[in-house]
Each structure stands twice: as C-alpha cells, then as structure tokens.
C-alpha cells in the first residue's frame, strides 16, 4: 500500500505529500524522537503528536514512509515547508494514536 492509498482508505488530511507513491511496510507509534530512531523501521508509518521541526529530520533519517499526526495536530507553515523540501509526507487525523494504529493494523495484514 502506498502513502496516497493510505490517505484515501483512512480519510486522512494531507499536510504534505511530496512522495505519495512511497510504499508502506509497517507502523510505529511513539513521541520520543530517539526512541523512534532506535525502534522504527524504514518504510513505517510513524504515528505521533509531536509537531516541531525535528520530526522532519527524524523521519528523514529513520527513513519512515510518512508521519501521521494524531489528535488533530497541525504543522506550522515553516515546518510544513521544511517537510515539503525534504520530501517528507505528513498526514493528520482527529483520531487518537490508538485509534489510528488499530485501524492501520487491519490494512497492513
């Protein structure tokens, strides 16, 4: 499943989508950045409520497929611009991290 397909299936709002054809292979849920870098796998959907500019660097370095912001978290315009420039997909949803992860698990089976 690609990030673009995920957006449609889960009715996610797109904040940035510079690489919508990126394949998704798993998911990881955490707000501590070093924890994410230590545990998330490449091509994961990363579910978080953090929205500062460092999430863009973490997503880029850990090579996740996209950042999925839970609880209706939005990005500042400058963070959005950095994500766009670095080719990082960022999506958002009103749902909680738990709801998103549980919904996502049915698509990843």
């Amino acid at each position, binding site marked *: 499943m690609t990030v673009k397909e995920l957006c449609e299936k889960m009715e996610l709002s797109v904040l940035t989508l510079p690489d919508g054809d990126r394949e998704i292979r798993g998911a990881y849920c955490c707000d*501590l950045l070093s924890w994410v870098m*230590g545990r998330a796998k*490449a091509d994961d959907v990363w579910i978080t409520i953090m929205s500062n500019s460092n999430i863009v*660097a973490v997503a880029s370095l850990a090579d996740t497929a996209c950042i999925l912001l839970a609880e209706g978290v939005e990005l500042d315009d400058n963070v959005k611009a950095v994500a766009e420039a*670095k080719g990082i997909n960022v999506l958002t949803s009103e749902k909680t991290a738990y709801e998103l992860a549980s919904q996502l698990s049915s698509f990843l089976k």
Partner: protein
Amino acid sequence: MSEPLKFKFDVQGGNFTSAGQASVMVKKNLRQLGLSPEIIRRVSIAMYEGEINMVIHAGGGVAEVVVYEDKVEIILDDNGPGIPNIELAMKEGFSTAPDNIRSLGFGAGMGLPNMKRYTDSMNIETQLGKGTKITMTVNF
C-alpha cells in the same frame, strides 16, 4: 587505494531548529556515493544522535564523517562539560536533558545507546570540563 572522502560540519549549540542539518546532509552525500540504504540509515541516525547531544549538552562542536573503501567513520568532537559517568550515560533511559528539551521530544536517554546500537564500534574519550570526542565506525 583511493583517498578517503571527508565531510566536516560545524554544529551550533542550542539551535534546535537547525539541529540535524549535518546528518541530513551526510545522508544525502552517502546516497550520492551509492552506499546501501541500511548503511546510510545507520550512519545518519548515529550521527544525528551525536549531533543532538552536542546541541543539548556541549554548546555545539565539530562533526566529521570519513568514507573509506570498507567503512564509514564518524568523529564528534566538542568542548562541552564532559561525561562524568559513561557507564550510566550508556544506560537506556538515563538522561540529564532539561525539561524544555524533553518537551521537544528529546531527552529520552536513548542517544548514546542508539549510537552504539547502530555502529560496529564506538569509542568515547571524555574529560570533565574539557570536552568529549566520540569515534564511531560502520563497516560495509
């Protein structure tokens, strides 16, 4: 044998907006060199953790990445306060980061453990009040 390729970066202390720029740049450079995605991921994560440590604790420093035929070496050198107890600092979850840093999502106490996890060797030279030099290698 060809000359090893060197990348050198000045890391600014206390600047969390630009933190990670050197690591992202290294990632880009290594990709252009055609290294495997897993090697690139390991090098850039280890370097990012070190870079963040220098930004949080040491008031900045210098990061150097050297690409050899069979390995990548990452050298992080700072003039910060030094690490009083390396064994403790290497424990997952141990952190001395202040609350304002934690609110950004850092300070999980995973920096040094992640650096060790993602590299094949890691050497820490530290002197209290003088600084810390960390040398890591990732073998191909």
